[in-house]
């Protein structure tokens, strides 16, 4: 069975790293840009992410996660670390919370047409099967990077409720992502 791209990166194949940057550069860059970092910080953190990928790809297991999920997970961790290091979290979160309040975050914005990665599409399909409260909390948490406390303040939900929605929502999502095709009969449990 041929090796996946990240498995080839783990074997330190230079051409694989080139393909990795070409395939995931847009995702990493966009994740950083949407985290409220400056352009210069986005450049720095993107460098860090690919540098880390080069080192940690040996831990990639295709039976546990897809390549997009793996790269996005590494990227999110680095971006969150960067935000904390910069001390920007407070300001950024305050801004994001205000944006969340302004937008209401009652539902997902319409998807744009065009090609999207298979794993991203699958994630969004599974996401729509969660309850509206779970969707709301997970969008504010995962997309905007808000802590549970800030989500509670922003939405008026009790902290325990936010925690429950986030926890159950993510666990359900993980279950759905583990299926070959998310089953729409399981909507909103």
């Amino acid at each position, binding site marked *: 069975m041929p090796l996946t791209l990240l498995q080839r990166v783990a074997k330190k194949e230079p051409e694989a790293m080139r393909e990795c940057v070409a395939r995931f550069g847009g995702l990493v860059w966009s994740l950083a840009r949407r985290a409220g970092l400056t352009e210069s910080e986005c450049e720095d953190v993107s*460098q860090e992410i690919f540098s880390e990928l080069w080192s940690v790809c040996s831990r990639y297991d295709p039976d546990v*996660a897809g390549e997009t999920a793996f790269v996005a997970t*590494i990227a999110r961790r680095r971006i969150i670390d960067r935000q904390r290091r910069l001390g920007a979290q407070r300001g950024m979160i305050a801004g994001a919370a205000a944006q969340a309040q302004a937008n209401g975050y009652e539902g997902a914005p319409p998807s744009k047409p065009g090609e999207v990665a298979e794993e991203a599409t699958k*994630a969004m399909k599974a996401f729509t099967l969660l309850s509206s409260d779970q969707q709301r909390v997970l969008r504010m948490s*995962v997309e905007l990077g808000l802590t*549970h406390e800030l989500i509670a303040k922003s939405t008026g939900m009790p902290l325990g409720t936010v*925690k429950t929605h986030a926890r159950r929502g993510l666990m359900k999502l993980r279950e759905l992502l583990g299926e070959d095709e998310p089953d729409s009969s399981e909507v909103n449990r």
Partner: protein
Amino acid sequence: MKMDPSIDRLEELWADRATGGEDAADVAEARQLRRRLGVSDDLNCMDFAAGQLGAGFTHELGLEAMPAHLERSIMARVPVRATRSMKLVPWLITAAAASIAIVLTLKQPGLSAEPFADQGQFVRASWADWDSPEVAGVRGEVAWCEDAQSGYMLFTGLPVNDPSKDRYHLWIFDSRGMSQRISGGVFDSDGGEVKVPIHPGIRVCGAQAFAITIERPEGVWVSDMSRRVSIAQLASK
């Protein structure tokens, strides 16, 4: 058979962490559970679910292309470690004139100039402390062949570094002066005798000095040269 409830609880704590809901008590509880269940604190299923969802949100609003200069920079900086076979990995394929070199770190027993014995065109210089060095007392030599655009650095006394925190960075000064210094890439030291090949990504025109600084793990495009280590002024053999 009933599942250990500790596993469910650990997954809940992982879900909290992946969604920004972890507090100090959760961290302590997760640590205890992991120890009892023999589970590592590595990337876990909840991290991946949140990561994949994050990718989904990002795709949903459309991806921005990574700037081309950044792609080139990443390609030029990701370090490559050679094997003991001394096979040099041709990492830099970029056509960008501004690309920098990758230095392959090779650990060789013994500090000897023997590898260069048949290379008469090499010029050599010894490492000396740079002005106000952060690390003093590093010794060894650099050998450089202008025609071949390659060379080697030999070190003793270069302290071991933690690659996740900082790395050694080579800079080459040529006839264009200090302001046009050329990045020679990053490398690590295990604290022993270290040999590092030099293969600059852009042409060096009349190498005059080689200098070592300490920089961030991913390397830097422009260094303020504030964390100095060693410098070697070249002289013809």
